[in-house]
């Protein structure tokens, strides 16, 4: 049991990304273990989103290696990453607002009766049933599954996006600023869902600017600055000030008694 928990699910060695002359990411070495939740933090432009794009197949790294479940992988397309069980919840949610919940959860992966390419007949009943089960599993309450997403609150839409990732992303879920646009109550709901994912032993990477959230949810904090990983801290052994020192590069010693959370 312990061995499983310590085994590495994702590892990047020397991951580097250059855009022409700009070095967006340099020598990123990161390890993620099963059943572990980590947060990636850093200032704007520090390389967090670049890192995520390069490990999910949206972009291809300039150099470096990625290992997923102890196998070397190279994702040419996001689809390849998804096929391996890696799901991303983007900041813009990538949801079709005019479609309803089951349509969004199954977007791109519809259940059909027979396969005729574009003219395959959709099995709407099955998709609705599976969506209900999925939403129950993640503890999200949506009263009317036929409602288009545009009529729902930001929090509900975020929950649908996370359910979608959780439903398909059995191996790893990456979330980019999951509660950035939400109010307190909805942030709470989303964070509870993330905790339930931890109970289900699904590894999660969260990019967040919200240090309070980070300290509440994750086991380890990885700090990026100017394209490099400048520190990895265990949540229960560090403080807000130490994290901020690493993010900004400025010693926060003078602010020892002040809270940034």
């Amino acid at each position: 049991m312990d061995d499983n928990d310590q085994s590495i699910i994702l590892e990047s060695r020397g991951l580097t990304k250059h855009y022409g002359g700009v070095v967006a990411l340099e020598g990123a070495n990161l390890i993620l273990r099963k059943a572990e939740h980590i947060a990636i933090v850093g200032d704007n432009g520090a390389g967090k989103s670049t890192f995520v794009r390069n490990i999910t197949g949206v972009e291809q790294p300039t150099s470096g290696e990625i290992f997923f479940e102890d196998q070397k992988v190279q994702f040419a397309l996001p689809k390849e990453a998804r096929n391996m069980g890696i799901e991303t919840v983007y900041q813009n949610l990538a949801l079709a607002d005019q479609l309803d919940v089951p349509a969004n959860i199954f977007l791109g992966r519809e259940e059909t009766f027979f396969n005729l390419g574009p003219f395959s007949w959709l099995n709407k009943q099955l998709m609705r049933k599976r969506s209900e089960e999925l939403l129950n599993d993640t503890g999200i309450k949506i009263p009317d599954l036929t409602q288009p997403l545009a009529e729902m609150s930001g929090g509900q839409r975020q929950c649908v996006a996370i359910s979608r990732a959780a439903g398909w992303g059995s191996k790893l879920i990456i979330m980019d600023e999951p509660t950035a646009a939400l109010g307190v109550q909805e942030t709470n709901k989303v964070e509870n869902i993330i905790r339930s994912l931890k109970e289900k032993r699904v590894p999660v990477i969260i990019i967040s600017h919200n240090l309070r959230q980070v300290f509440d949810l994750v086991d380890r904090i990885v700090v990026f600055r100017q394209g490099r990983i400048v520190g990895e801290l265990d949540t229960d052994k560090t403080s807000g000030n130490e994290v901020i020192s690493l993010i900004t590069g400025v010693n926060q010693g003078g602010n020892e008694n002040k809270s940034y959370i």
Partner: protein
Amino acid sequence: MPSTLQEISDSVVKFLIKFFRLECSGSLLAIVILSISIELVTPGKPFFHPSNIMTILNNSAAIGVIAGGMTLVVLSAGIDLSVGSVMGMTAALTGYLVSFWGFSPGMAIFSGFGIGALVGMVNGSLVAYLKMPAFIVTLAGLSVWRGTGHLTTGARATPKLPETFYGFGRHNPLAWLRDGFQDGSLPDVLIPLGEFVDENWITTFRTFQMSLIIFIAFFVFLALIVNNTRFGRYVYAIGSNESGASQAGINTKAYKLMTYLFCSLSAALGALLFLGRAPYAKSDYGQMWELDAIAAVVIGGTSLFGGKGTLWGTFLGVILLKLINNGLTLAQLETFWQMVVTGIIILIAVGIDIVRRSRSAMKTQKMMTVIAMAMAFFAFLTPASLYTHSWIVVHEHYSAEEIKLEGGKLAREQSKRLQSVRNLETHEEIMFLNIWPSIFLGGLVVASLIPLWLPGLVVYTGIASLFLFMVIPLQILAYKFGIPFLILGCFLMLASGLVPKIFERARNISVVN
């Protein structure tokens, strides 16, 4: 006691929410109310008779299928302005191939569709793969394909088309039953059926044509595909959030190409349906049809911004447009008014779309007030246009007379403007008859704007009763055709006044739920 009243009003509100969530509900309501009004206002001319309804369907078939194809493109947040030109070009070329190149009708029709497919591929490739703006590509297409149509056929009409073409339009599939019954050549088992058809020929079966069969079959087919296949769902997804759809792994480029392909093929089908009722083929058919198609799509509730709307909505939009045109004709207005009215309706429909997206009670209320004003305007059109027309005639007469008096020579056009004394009298009488109704109805148009600044149930009810009051002068003057518009306007004003209460009730209900 109050609680059951509460329950009843709650279920009414719930029903309203469900009904108006449907995008085509507006046009459905408008069709129902307009049809009922037309029926009431034209006694002796049966409106709801099957033969009349079938006539409307027959006349709408060609533009209808084109609007259907356009719906697909608009759903994916695109637009196709070239459909009218493609229709004209394929119609002309099909006729030309049959008449002058010795093609069989089947081959010519097949070639017509081939040309439509080619145009669709061009449009789709430029828009989807080269990422050129759809508006520009299809606007250019409008010009290019119309010109090509004229060039290749010399812009002359073909001789009369072979009978085969009627099989796609005017042919009545039940005619042989009737003819067979009448001359006794029907097999025995079919005689009762033949008798039934013959008895009800004039009221029901006379206008049953292939046009409407193909029209309805096309929509049934298209609706099934759009609602139940991957293609349909991806069209909606791309219209709703193209980058999101792409992130979900959907091949957005291929699907967009398919919508343009389908749209141009529909234009070719529209050409065929038109040829089914036309005596000959000519390259200037279908001019301005893209406008009517877009109007039908938008009126049917499909959003120009993509992702929202239904095919049956477009079907209703096509029918509503035809009804309004028929109505305007009955109201003795020149056909050019149809262009003005169609444009106004497009504006209103887009306004409704924007207001619906905003989901704000105040905006909905204001929008409904504006629509009621448009209704008053449509009622105002008959007396006002009659008055203006006569005024212009009289005025031109006196100007021409003045030129003559001052000794100037009159050009031929100017001397045509001189009227006989009797004509002058007629026109002046028309002006006299119409000046007060025009002023009153014009006042109604202005008055219907008052609630925009003074919203309040009392004001709304007051203006709504003004609408009803105006029915009287129209009835006296026998301008019965404006009456349905006034009734519709009255409904809208009342509903407008109730909007804030309904929204509030709806919000309370959903919070409780």
